[in-house]
């Protein structure tokens, strides 16, 4: 049942229309601009702690989410701004969370690595590598328990693959036939450790075979290819309650976090510049213009709308007060 496809996806004619193309481009540009603004705010000391940027990887979250329903779930690691935005969360409340303000998604108590938005079924930002894979498996367990047809997309980096929880989760999901799509965003570096220095098998999709799980690799810089692979996984989850492992081959253009701005110790400048030529936003924009799904005006409008939205998000975050000290001791327990 294992298969490998997807380096050159050929969407069926008519499958892409202007609305879809606009949405895909809009969502990718939104993630890019949101994070560029977040990086600026970080440099100004308005955002603290760790800030891990998703820039370069936008096609994965946007392509996968575009194949899902709004009532499906998603969960991710600590590089999760993109997944949260793709799921439809409010950029204003997300930015306020990054700023540590009361109007943030978690009232400023989570921060960049712990974005949660129950309203869009986004189950977090988890910052212990591998720890959210069992959680995703549990959400899928609950869906099946209740007899529903939702699924959960579980995003993680190549750095989670050597963790024991990857193995435990893949095994349980396949053993129990649970509707979870494991999406490994293989950006080739776990912080500064390259794939070759971390994994005995660097073709990550192949791990699915060991669990009798459907598995595919896909060009993670191609939003339509991700969408297509995800659509197959979604169908498998909905109709058969079966899990899938997708390896999306992508690249982060920035460092591991803002504290590793260049990411230059463990990879060459040439490599980074070469990968930037495959910018998923540029690739899709050019393709959409060529195919006639979009015209230049559409692109300009998206850029303007997104810039306005992100500026508004920053203004909202700036204006939001810090959480009152009483918040320190609320939410430790839920009061029954």
């Amino acid at each position, binding site marked *: 049942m294992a298969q490998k496809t997807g380096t050159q996806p050929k969407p069926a004619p008519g499958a892409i229309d202007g609305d879809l193309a606009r949405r895909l481009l809009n969502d990718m540009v939104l993630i890019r601009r949101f994070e560029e603004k977040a990086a600026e705010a970080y440099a100004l000391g308005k955002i603290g702690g760790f800030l891990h940027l998703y820039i370069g990887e936008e096609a994965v979250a946007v392509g996968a989410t575009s194949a899902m329903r709004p009532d499906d779930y998603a969960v991710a690691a600590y590089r999760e701004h993109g997944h949260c935005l793709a799921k439809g969360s409010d950029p204003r409340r997300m930015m306020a969370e990054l700023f540590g303000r009361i109007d943030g998604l978690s009232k400023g108590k989570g921060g960049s690595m712990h974005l949660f938005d*129950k309203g869009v079924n986004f189950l977090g930002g988890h910052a212990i590598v591998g720890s959210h894979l*069992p959680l995703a498996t549990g959400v899928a367990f609950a869906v099946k328990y209740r007899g529903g047809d939702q699924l959960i997309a579980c995003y993680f980096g190549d750095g989670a693959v050597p963790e024991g929880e990857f193995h435990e989760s893949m095994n349980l999901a396949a053993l129990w036939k649970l509707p979870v799509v494991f999406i490994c965003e293989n950006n080739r570096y776990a912080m500064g450790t390259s794939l070759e220095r971390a994994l005995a098998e660097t073709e990550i999709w192949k791990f699915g075979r060991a669990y009798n799980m459907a598995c595919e690799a896909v060009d993670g810089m191609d939003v339509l290819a991700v969408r297509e692979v995800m659509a197959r996984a979604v169908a498998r989850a909905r109709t058969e309650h079966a899990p899938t492992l997708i390896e999306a081959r992508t690249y982060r253009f920035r460092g591991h976090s803002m504290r590793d701005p260049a990411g230059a110790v463990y990879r060459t400048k040439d490599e980074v510049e070469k990968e930037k030529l495959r910018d998923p936003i540029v690739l899709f924009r050019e393709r959409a213009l060529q195919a006639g799904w979009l015209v230049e005006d559409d692109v300009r409008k998206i850029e303007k709308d997104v810039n306005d939205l992100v500026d508004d998000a920053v203004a909202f975050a700036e204006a939001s007060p810090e959480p009152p000290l009483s918040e320190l001791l609320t*939410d430790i327990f839920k009061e029954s």
Partner: protein
Amino acid sequence: MAVMTYREALNLALREEMTRDDRVFVIGEEVGLYEGAYKVTQGLLKDFGPKRVVDTPIAESGFTGVGIGAAMVGLRPVVEMMTFNFALLALDQIVNSAAKMNYMSGGQFNVPIVIRGPGGPAHQLAAQHSQSMEVYFYHVPGLKVVRPSTPEDAKGLLKSAIRDDNPVIFIESETLYAVKGEVSEDPEFTIPLGKAAVRREGTDVTVVAYMGMMYRALEAAEELAKDGISIEIVDPRTLQPLDSGTILESVRKTHRAVVVEAGAGFAGMGSELSAVITEQAFDDLDAPVERVTGVPAPMPYARNLEKAKTPSKERIIEAVRRVCYANGNGKS
């Protein structure tokens, strides 16, 4: 009321709560077909089916995480640890996921989960199967920790734990599963978390003890009574939240306190109890608080060494005499 074992009381609590709420399910190693390593889940698979009594492979972190994920979206899992020592493999899930989820999501995702199983010294189970595991959990904000000493507490507290909207660590004991006692059969009978019990009333010394240590304190009380020393035994039952009110009330009456724990002592439950009493009832104390704890060594296998590692009735009696400044014959 009916007389039943601690094991049967736990089983009854599970049955009642599974009947009451179809979101409650049991998951863990050997809980179904095998009916539980210690038979706490006996008959549940037959009565509730495999959907709600879920056998897992040996994957503690995995199936604990499954429980937490399921709880985040509204189910109410009861995760069995075959022994709580195995929970160390799931410690990251318990500490970093379950305990913090409600807080770091700003109250959006609470985790109504119970993680239960036996822990503490048992019968020659040696170093890796005999640890008093509560110490790993009550330090963590966001976890509730229960140690039920009697069959009635086992039932009433487990039911409250299952109904609680937060993660509850519920540590039983291999040595207590066969203990018999009176238990309410009322399906609405519960014991609230965070409420201590006075097991024996007395006037001279307060002894705080739980689980097997509570039974040793009861034996010590009989002997001490012969010498005219009357001890009051307070069983906290829930370690987090701790019912310090009941403990302090007792100390303010007796003016002396001995705290007992099976664990290794250093920075243990006894340390916390001693601090609470000393900080909040210092002016009421006629003697420094005494701690009786396990020896700070891994649990040895040999029967005589195991006995020497764990607090004995004799050591409790000695400590009580010390806080009474009594050397053998009644109060000084």
